[in-house]
């Protein structure tokens, strides 16, 4: 009984101002930045005259030292705050002193002239005189110990106080406050194509004590200073967080500062209403043009890029990553001229050994290369190659499929923005995709008269990219072999073919089906394999 009475005696007395916030370990230099904030919820004004603020050293019993004593003119009315602290504080304290508080386990207390005492202790305190109920948790440097809500009085420091961003002279918890959750602002997709629809996504939080009614918060997205979309938020209970999205159109092309601003009548804290993040609409300064993800000659993986910015570009600081966005391999500083190609290499020395004629100045070693996958997932994607600027803004992103691609062949960006298989094993680092002349027909076998052991080439020209197969039949119409099966092809392309066929007349049939189509386009071409008996 005596113990309970003692504990109760150390908590906030009724109808008196209370300790609302303590910053005992400011970020950086403590001098001039420490403070103790008092708050009054008493129904009548309370004089602070004779009130003593004492600091306690929790390492032993009875170690209290006076820090401040209230003057005759110091009075707190209901809802007011009284700030005691260093000269560097903003706003300026009502009483400027050097508190010199310890980082814990320690305590502060208010001793009223009539004998009532309120104690706030933090950390692993051993002696009961240093806390009320249970000591509050020690907080990290830069955070204050704040009473939430400001008039909380549960009878325990541990439940009344929590870590918070310092808010001297302001409420620890506002009544009405919508806030954007830090780090939650993003574009979806991350790098939308120019002119395509996009979403600005973020999470907002009701940081106040009162519920927020539906439609009260308007979320406004800005591209730099231009508004690009708005959305009204749903109702938010106190402490609740919800996701919001704002529809927009990704235009014009370029990098910008994406900004989300919350607007709500009566919002008591403007500082948490705005969030910024760098973003981009459309392609960045570098374009990925070829990907070697399964080298067959020991040259290591590599990615070819093109400077599409129109100006010389320093590649230093760009990062290269895979689908998991892990690694973030850093490129070394190299200036790439406009429209020039560069190869980002997993193993620069091995790549140069395999392709000794490459311009060494444009073969760039990448630190901490994330190995690219060689087999597709259920969605038909083997991996994703991502390029980012130093601050994480996306520059280029390519999903590729490994299906139907023999080891050594690359994925290469062909005309029209379509990706195809390289024409040759090993790919074509630092060389643009071959420009192919138009064909007279949809399918050609080159040469038309083959001889045993002679390499052949299958060329095609179709109206759209497609999944294509080429099947070989003999003159009788019997199926002989498949030249290739179900490959993703560009409208104009070619593929080398080792025609291991006995002499005779054959018919090649191209079957090409674009995405979503059910009936394929077919084209035939007769050719001869010559030989003697």
């Amino acid at each position, binding site marked *: 009984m005596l113990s309970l009475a003692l504990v109760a005696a150390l908590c906030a007395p009724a109808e008196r101002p209370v300790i609302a916030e303590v910053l005992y370990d400011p970020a950086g230099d403590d001098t001039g930045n420490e403070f103790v904030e008092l708050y009054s919820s008493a129904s009548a004004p309370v004089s602070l005259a004779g009130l003593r603020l004492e600091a306690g050293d929790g390492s032993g019993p009875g170690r209290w030292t006076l820090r401040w004593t209230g003057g005759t003119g110091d009075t707190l009315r209901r809802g007011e705050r009284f700030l005691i602290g260093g000269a560097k504080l903003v706003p300026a304290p009502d009483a400027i002193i050097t508190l010199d508080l310890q980082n814990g386990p320690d305590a502060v207390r208010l001793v009223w002239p009539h004998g009532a005492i309120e104690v706030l202790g933090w950390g692993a305190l051993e002696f009961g005189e240093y806390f009320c109920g249970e000591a509050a948790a020690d907080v990290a440097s830069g955070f204050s110990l704040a009473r939430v809500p400001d008039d909380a009085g549960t009878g325990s420091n541990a439940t009344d106080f929590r870590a918070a961003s310092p808010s001297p002279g302001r409420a620890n918890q506002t009544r009405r406050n919508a806030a954007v959750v830090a780090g939650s602002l993003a574009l979806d997709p991350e790098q939308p194509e120019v002119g395509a629809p996009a979403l600005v996504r973020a999470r907002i939080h009701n940081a106040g004590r009162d519920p927020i009614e539906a439609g009260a918060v308007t979320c406004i997205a800005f591209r730099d200073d231009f508004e690009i979309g708005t959305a009204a938020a749903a109702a938010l209970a106190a402490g609740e967080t919800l996701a919001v999205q704002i529809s927009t159109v990704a235009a014009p092309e370029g990098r910008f500062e994406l900004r989300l601003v919350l607007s709500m009548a009566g919002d008591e804290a403007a500082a948490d209403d705005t969030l910024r993040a760098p973003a981009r609409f459309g392609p960045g300064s570098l374009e990925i043009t070829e990907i070697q993800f399964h080298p067959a000659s020991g040259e290591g993986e590599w990615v070819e890029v093109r400077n599409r910015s129109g100006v010389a570009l320093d590649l230093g600081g760009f990062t290269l990553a895979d689908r998991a966005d892990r690694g973030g391999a850093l490129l070394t500083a190299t200036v790439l001229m406009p429209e020039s190609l560069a190869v980002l290499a997993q193993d620069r020395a091995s790549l140069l050994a395999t392709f000794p004629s490459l311009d060494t100045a444009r073969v760039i070693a990448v630190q901490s290369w994330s190995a690219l996958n060689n087999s597709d997932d259920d969605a038909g994607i083997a991996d994703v190659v991502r390029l980012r600027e130093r601050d994480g803004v996306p520059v280029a992103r390519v999903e590729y499929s490994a299906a139907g691609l023999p080891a050594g062949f690359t994925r290469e960006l062909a005309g029209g923005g379509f990706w195809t298989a390289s024409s040759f094993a090993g790919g074509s680092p630092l060389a643009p995709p071959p420009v192919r002349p138009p064909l007279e027909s949809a399918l050609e076998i080159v040469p038309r008269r083959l001889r045993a052991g002679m390499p052949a080439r299958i060329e095609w020209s179709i109206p759209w990219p497609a999944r294509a197969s080429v099947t070989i039949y003999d*003159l009788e119409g019997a199926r002989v072999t498949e030249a290739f099966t179900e490959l993703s092809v560009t409208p104009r392309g070619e593929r080398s073919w080792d025609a291991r066929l006995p002499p005779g*007349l054959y018919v090649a049939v191209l079957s090409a089906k674009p995405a979503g189509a059910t009936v394929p386009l077919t084209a035939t071409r007769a050719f001869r394999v010559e030989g*003697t008996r």
Partner: protein
Amino acid sequence: MKGAIARVMVPAIVLAAFCGEVQAQDFAAAVPVMGEGALSLIEHGVAATPPGAAFEGGVVRWLGIDDFTTRSLAVSGRWRSLTGAAGLSATGGDEGWRSAGIASGYAGSNAGAALRAVFRQDAAPEAIETPLGRGAGLEAGTGAWIRPRPGLDVWASHPQIYMKGAAPPLNRGLETGIRLAGDGISAWLARRAAGGREARHRGGVALEFGTVASAWIEARDDPLRTGYGIEARSRLVAVAFALETHPVLGETARLSLAIGGAPGGP
């Protein structure tokens, strides 16, 4: 005599049944089974030409490809049990070839056998050089049939036993087949062994409308496809047309016209 022929032919057919494949190319006729005619005798070596002299011409449009239409013309003659035929053929244009064929053999009432040979010359000037000349090739083979009892025919054809020079457009090994006939209806089944691959098969049913007409349907595998045909005959003239579909490629259309001789066959 019949017993002697059977003793020779049946083992030969069984032995040959596991060799290559056969399909008409230079002298193709419209009729599905080796019937009487100069074209069949030259193409397959199955000896059964009508008595006396006869002419036969054929046109085949292969798999819907215009560039490789075959046109052929042949003449045949039969004196007692000796039969023979000779013909010329042209396939395609600049990428095609020209052929000359000849066949001769024995044709009895219950069996027959013949030798056949075709000389082929590629039309393309860049054709391969061979010992016989640029783009020139020669092939020779044989065919035979027997009728062990009325209404049952068994045949075999191996037209490319010997080859020299430029390889032919189509490798043709051996085909063996059997046909059952009676009361105006007949059915046949043929097997073509394809070296290194599964054998190919075809089969069909034909209806005879007296001596003046017949119609048939036929199916084959690899890939599965069907065809049909019709033949009209008079005392001196026979016209046949056949069409075969293909699931991927175009249709193969065959037309043949025979003049002279008399209806009948193996």
